């Protein structure tokens, strides 16, 4: 037994791993699959020493193992290829690949470095010069280099997190052939991927994670893609909240063939007044990119975004335009795009519409206090008052303040990217209730979420994106978790990505 994990637990804001058990033999390739947030990445992070577990035991080749840090994990023979690439742009391909153990005593032995690099690149069928700077590579090439870096070690256990997300089929096959060879030499591999066809072909055994637990495990030859998806989503049909499909109003947001440099395919969609429109999809499906394009954060290369008022069509070209015409966005990354750190709740809540607490550019403290107090009450923000620093608040309450910002502005269109990520359950339901209330007042709401349950509970319609493409749209009465998941996986299994 190479690796044995017993009762592994990890808790961030909410439990991520709840008593996970898993075994892996020497020379075996095992797959870990699951929906977003099932705990796959956290498991790999714990094994490779990036984060400690709360409890549970890990046994590596018969000896207890707890990685203190990534360096210790590497020395113990664990090598992680993570989703967030860890390459250094200003170093060459060879230097990046060899970074963990550069040859040479004092002077860098370039010849040896380049020779070793050349061998690895050849095996990947990758036509790159060893001295090319990594900063000049495209995404697929960078992922290959990252993989080469991972494989350039005498590891006994390889941890691969979505190693093929940017690769085309041919590149993925080359990778798989190499992994197979390593496995034959006794290396064990944990392989996390959304490309389920690949998983079933490559791996000996599949572990299905859901909500931080293993819900099913079986040898690959006993499984089909459909079965895996069924296990991932959970067999028991979830009781749908008894909300009838909302009769929505006229079209408010019209997007036609919208494309930016961050998007892979042009997208069109219509959203109505009084509708919550969901965007489902896997990590990297292009939901965030779409929302950012609608909001105008990235320049449009083609297509149109229009707001339809009674008799006018207003074309939106940039973010200032959007905010001016009543569009608000709650970004995915609260810390870097949402809050103003070190400043008060009041500052954060009113910044998008200071006109309502000022007359002729002069701020009125009294009007600000009244407005902020009303917002705090309406959203039930737990804080000492408007003067408190926003950093002192919990994640959920910070998120409420960002929502308050757009309530204060009285938006007609709200774009929300992962509105309840890192938010505790209580605040999550409060946010859902608030969004429903806004919907009932006629606001048009677009929500992107990795959490399918959230979209199913909240939305009147759900559009599914996969690998940058809009795959299909489901009306509330035809919501079907398995079909939605199937659609979300569809393009990842077949397309060749650039």
């Amino acid at each position, binding site marked *: 037994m190479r690796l044995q994990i017993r009762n592994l637990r990890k808790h961030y804001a909410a439990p991520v791993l709840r008593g996970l058990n898993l075994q892996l033999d020497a020379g075996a390739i095992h797959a870990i699959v699951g929906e977003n947030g099932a705990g796959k990445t956290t498991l790999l992070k714990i094994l490779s020493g990036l984060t400690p577990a709360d409890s549970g035991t890990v046994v590596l080749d018969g000896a207890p193992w707890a990685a203190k840090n990534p360096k210790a994990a590497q020395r113990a023979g664990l090598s992680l290829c993570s989703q967030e690439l860890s390459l250094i742009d200003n170093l060459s391909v060879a230097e990046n690949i060899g970074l963990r153990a550069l040859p040479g005593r004092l002077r860098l032995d370039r010849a040896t470095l380049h020779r070793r690099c050349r061998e690895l690149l050849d095996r990947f069928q990758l036509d790159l010069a060893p001295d090319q700077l990594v900063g000049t590579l495209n995404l697929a090439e960078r992922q290959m280099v990252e993989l080469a870096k991972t494989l350039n070690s005498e590891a006994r256990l390889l941890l691969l997190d979505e190693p093929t997300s940017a690769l085309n089929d041919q590149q993925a096959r080359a990778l798989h052939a190499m992994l197979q060879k390593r496995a034959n030499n006794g290396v064990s591999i944990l392989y996390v991927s959304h490309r389920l066809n690949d998983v079933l072909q490559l791996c000996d055994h599949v572990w299905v994670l859901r909500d931080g637990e293993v819900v099913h495990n079986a040898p690959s030859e006993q499984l089909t893609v459909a079965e895996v998806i069924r296990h991932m989503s959970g067999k028991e049909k979830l009781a749908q909240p008894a909300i009838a499909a909302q009769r929505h109003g006229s079209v408010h947001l019209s997007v036609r063939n919208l494309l930016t440099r961050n998007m892979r395919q042009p997208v069109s969609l219509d959203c109505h007044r009084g509708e919550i429109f969901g965007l489902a999809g896997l990590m990297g499906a292009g939901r965030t990119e779409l929302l950012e394009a609608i*909001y105008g*954060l990235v320049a449009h290369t083609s297509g149109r975004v229009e707001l339809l008022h009674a008799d006018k069509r207003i074309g939106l070209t940039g*973010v*200032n335009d*959007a*905010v*001016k015409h009543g569009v608000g*966005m709650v*970004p995915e990354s609260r810390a*870097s*795009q*949402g*809050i*103003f*750190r*070190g*400043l008060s709740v009041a*500052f954060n809540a009113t*910044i*998008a519409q*200071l*006109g309502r607490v*000022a007359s002729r*550019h*002069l*701020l009125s403290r009294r009007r600000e206090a009244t407005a902020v107090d009303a917002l705090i009450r309406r959203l039930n923000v737990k804080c000492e008052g408007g003067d408190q620093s926003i950093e*002192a608040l919990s994640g959920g309450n910070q998120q409420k303040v960002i929502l308050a*910002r757009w309530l204060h502005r009285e938006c007609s269109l709200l774009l929300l990217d992962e509105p309840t990520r890192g938010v505790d359950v209580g605040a999550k339901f409060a946010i859902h209730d608030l969004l429903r209330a806004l919907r009932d007042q006629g606001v048009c709401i677009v929500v992107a979420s990795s959490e399918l349950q959230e979209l199913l509970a909240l939305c009147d319609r759900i559009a599914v994106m996969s690998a940058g493409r809009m795959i299909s749209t489901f009306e509330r009465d035809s919501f079907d978790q398995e079909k939605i998941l199937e659609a979300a996986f569809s393009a990842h299994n077949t397309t060749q990505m650039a």
Partner: protein
Amino acid sequence: MSRRLLRWLDQYLVMVSLLVIILTFTLAAENFLSYGTLSAILNQLPALTLVTVGMTFVLICGGIDLSVGSVLALSAAVIGVTVAAGFSIPVAALAGVATGAVAGLVNGLLGSYLRLPVFIVTLGMLEAARGFAYLITDSQTVYIGSAIQGLVQPIPWLALTPAFLCALVVVAVAHFVLTATVFGRHIIAVGTNPEAARMSGIDPKLTLLIVLCISGVLAGLAGLMNSAYLGSTDPNAGLGLELAAIAAAVIGGTSLMGGRGSIFSAFIGVLIIAVLQNGLAQIGVSEPFKRVVTGVVIVLAVVLDRWRADRVP
């Protein structure tokens, strides 16, 4: 220490420091705490005060303006040359301030719309403006005459000069703009988190552009004050002034990372530097040692500020 005391210190730390320094010199030197001494110190300050106000705006907005000293010299040079060409003082003053505005506009356009780092753009302006100042004055001091010196004649019953009072008004207005207007909020928002500001419908580029223009205008105005002080224009005026202004802003608790700072506290920072310089001179400390002390005070101010930020909830 009690929480309330910490809160109070948080707000008035800079003020308290200034008072402590004044008190120290009062004990160490005779006649330091006299209206004559203090007003004499204040009357030296208009130029530094004005550029410090501009610098504080720029720092809070997340930028930096290294060109203020050179822009001061260039504006002063324009004033001198304009007067020498036979124009009246008001016209010359206007030309000087306009020169500062143009320099600030160029900084702003390059820094925000061409997305060049503001540090580099204003470093370039530091060299270029100084060069222009030498060019248009032919590297000579240009005599202006006594007409302009009305600005620096102390008002008899107050012992303060119109120039200093003017700087004081600028401090008050700037403090008001930063704390009580929509534009002030925008500056703080952009300096704290430009991306979040953009998502809230604020234009970070435009905000930085305006702030750099303000800094340019104030440097131009400081050029006028400097000419008045000297009665002539010196193309070497304001050498190193940008660093004195940054030091004053930092002593006043302004963060070089943007988002945090206060105009009023920066002004107190100016006073601290001035009182230190004069007080040390009065107790007979040598010029080199004065510089050592000033350097220590700047670093000490930041250490205190850190300590405060860590402790105050």
